[in-house]
């Protein structure tokens, strides 16, 4: 398979899009570090599914906004698997509100978990990837980061920030054969989007060319593809997986 023998760290891999990414890459024969923040039971489920696919899985609890915890996770990965080929920065949260009502804490937390986390993990893996002259980094952004969304100033800013980070890292690490890309999911069915009202959901669906909401697997297959050697000459790109909301 196309990720045979590769080692991948996926942040926020216990549920939703992160879980689907972990399983898609394990399905392509990669070993996976399943990072999670709070849901140990869900992370163990993801790991069990990876092992069923015949691959190794390591569950690692770490708050990705904490630099030293992320370094600890990368050190543990290198100790266990000997290398990190692929990093997927997927962990993310929302604290939606209109700017008039948004608390400073909501802003700070979302920026820390969705954006600073990617800085932490890229920094932590960069040394070994640079040495290995190989790496695939994929940041999970959002269409909201490209186009904005009322009520998501913090989330949209963080996701747009990931795009700037992606392009800068692509330029900085490109000479060492490390590709850095971003994917921008649209409206994907996960716990995160379940909070929306039926009315909001119908309205969203009407704006999607394919006339349906996305599945986590729709995003995961692109991430697995970007992590593969098929994509050695693609870097610094932002690819939307949104069913054709924006073209």
């Amino acid at each position: 398979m196309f990720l045979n023998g590769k080692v991948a760290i996926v942040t926020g891999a216990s549920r939703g899009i992160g879980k689907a990414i972990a399983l898609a890459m394990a399905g392509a024969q990669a070993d996976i570090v399943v990072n999670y923040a709070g849901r140990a039971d869900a992370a163990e489920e993801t790991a069990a599914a990876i092992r069923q696919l015949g691959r190794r899985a390591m569950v690692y609890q770490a708050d990705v906004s904490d630099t030293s915890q992320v370094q600890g996770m990368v050190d543990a990965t290198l100790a266990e698997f000997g290398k990190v080929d692929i990093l997927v920065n997927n962990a993310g949260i929302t604290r939606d509100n209109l700017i008039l009502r948004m608390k400073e804490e909501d802003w700070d937390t979302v920026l820390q978990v969705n954006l600073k986390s990617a800085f932490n993990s890229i920094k932590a893996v960069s040394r070994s990837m640079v040495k290995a002259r190989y790496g695939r980094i994929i940041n999970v952004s959002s269409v909201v980061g490209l186009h904005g969304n009322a009520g998501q100033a913090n989330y949209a800013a963080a996701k747009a920030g990931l795009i700037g980070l992606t392009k800068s890292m692509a330029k900085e690490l490109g000479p060492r054969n490390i590709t850095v890309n971003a994917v921008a999911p649209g409206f994907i069915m996960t716990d995160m989007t379940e909070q929306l009202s039926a009315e909001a959901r119908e309205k969203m669906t009407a704006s999607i060319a394919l006339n349906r909401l996305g599945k986590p697997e729709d995003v995961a297959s692109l991430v697995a593809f970007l992590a593969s050697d098929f994509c050695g000459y693609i870097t610094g790109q932002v690819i939307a997986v949104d069913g054709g909301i924006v073209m």
Partner: protein
Amino acid sequence: MATFDKVKAIIVDQLGVEESEVAMEASFVDDLGADSLDIVELVMALEEEFGLEIPDEEAEKIRTVGDAVKFIQDRQ
């Protein structure tokens, strides 16, 4: 001079240059064709080999092979 030989080996390995090019007065950027990422990698390799930490402000002063050798010798 053991330090010089070790430093030379690291430079040859990191920058892919010939041993004969690595003279004490050779500049990493001008003579050995290193870019900024090469220099960061070189500093990391020297830190590992000699078990020391080279702070950014010190690393910036290391421009030639001789600077690197002297920096390391001063701390041994």
